[in-house]
């Protein structure tokens, strides 16, 4: 049984990768969690998860004739499975995107929660694909006008392709009281509940520098606590693993950039 979430924001800089790993770690207390760097054009997750030196990444699975099996690119870290992307642009160009569907389908068949760290843009087909494929999307949004506008756009794209909003995560919050008011007003427009307001926290920066997920690096930080609250609010709905796998397998092949 599996539910696939795309963790998305309309633009970069919202702390999406930090949030993906934090939610993954928090959910891993109750579920088998697999986190995938679905932003195949801009490897990022590996730096956050201490996987910068690994040999086999998702890109190897997308290349013809490498002989790598899916399990070779899956790393057990912090109680969850992590599938990073590599940084080689030539590998990315040579990658055959149709293989991505099969890789993700295989991962979906053997986990409870699949978190897809999605590209921070709506500008291309491969960037939108994770949102299309997921059951629901988690919107990571800073409490600013451009970020909220972008998150609304992602919501509408998602809805257009049959993907619901699981919740809205306000991130990098400096004024908690004001954000409570903002969240209350934003609630009228977003289809999912507010999951949490995660405070701006130096611990997040320190974790990134250390190459560790925030919840592993600073589990008692204010931000870590807020992410755990968010994971509690997120009601994971198990859907049939075979159906999810089929959906990935039947998805269209994205363009090369």
């Amino acid at each position, binding site marked *: 049984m599996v539910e696939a979430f795309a963790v998305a924001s309309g*633009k*970069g*800089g919202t*702390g999406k*990768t930090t949030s993906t790993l934090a939610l993954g770690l928090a959910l891993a207390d109750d579920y088998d969690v697999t986190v995938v760097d679905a932003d195949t054009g*801009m*490897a*990022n997750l590996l*730096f956050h998860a201490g996987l*910068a030196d690994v040999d086999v990444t998702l890109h190897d699975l997308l290349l013809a004739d490498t002989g790598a099996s899916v399990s070779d690119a899956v790393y057990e870290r912090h109680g969850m499975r992590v599938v990073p992307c590599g*940084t080689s*642009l030539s590998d990315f160009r040579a990658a055959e995107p149709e293989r991505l569907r099969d890789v993700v389908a295989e991962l979906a068949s053997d986990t409870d929660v699949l978190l897809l760290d999605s590209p*921070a*843009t*709506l500008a291309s*087909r491969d960037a*939108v694909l994770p949102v*299309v494929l997921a059951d629901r999307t988690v919107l990571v949004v*800073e*409490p*600013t*006008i*451009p*970020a*909220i*506008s972008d998150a*609304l*756009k992602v*919501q*509408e*794209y998602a*809805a*257009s*392709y*049959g993907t619901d909003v699981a919740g809205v995560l306000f991130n*990098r919050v*400096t*004024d908690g009281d*004001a*954000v409570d*008011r*903002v969240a209350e*007003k*934003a609630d*009228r*427009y977003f289809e999912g509940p507010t999951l949490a307001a995660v405070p*701006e926290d130096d611990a997040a*920066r320190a974790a*990134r*520098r250390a*190459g560790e997920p925030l919840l592993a690096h600073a589990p008692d930080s204010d931000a870590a606590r807020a992410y755990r609250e968010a994971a509690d609010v997120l009601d994971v709905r198990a859907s049939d693993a075979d159906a999810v796998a089929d959906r990935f397998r*039947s998805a*269209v092949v*994205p*363009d090369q950039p």
Partner: protein
Amino acid sequence: MTPVSFSRVVEDAAAALELALDRELTGYAEFTPQDALLLEDGGAGVLAFEAGVPTHVKHSGSGRGGDAALADLAVPGPLRVECYAGGDPPVPETDQFAVAPGTPAERLAGDADLADRTRAAAPSDRAGGGEPMDAVEAFLEDDEKIDAIRERAREEATERADEWGFEEFAED
């Protein structure tokens, strides 16, 4: 020596800075203009980044720092960007080499939107309160504006469903 974590040629400085911002680069990046004919003394720009926001800049050709280094680096055309995530920047972290968060986007790319977005991501801006929350609240009270944003996005999504071959997912 920190290994290069990312390397690609991009069409212009805006793309290079956006790359660093979107991947929340903490470390440094080298920007090497590809059109060597336009370069008098050659060299690359080395930019220190904190969570995607440029903080210090040095030009390796002229040795100058800060805004002067940006002037030396302001060459139109493609750039090779090499990112060193987690690397200690080979740029002195002093006032002479410091740049304001939005300045590289303005001087190198002439991109006001990107400059705004970079400023919004800068910690100092956050510490100072960033965008006033009452402006965000006022925005959220403007139903008409928000409905227009949503409607436009839905139209785009539908158009692109066709273009991208997502018809089978698109909902009426």
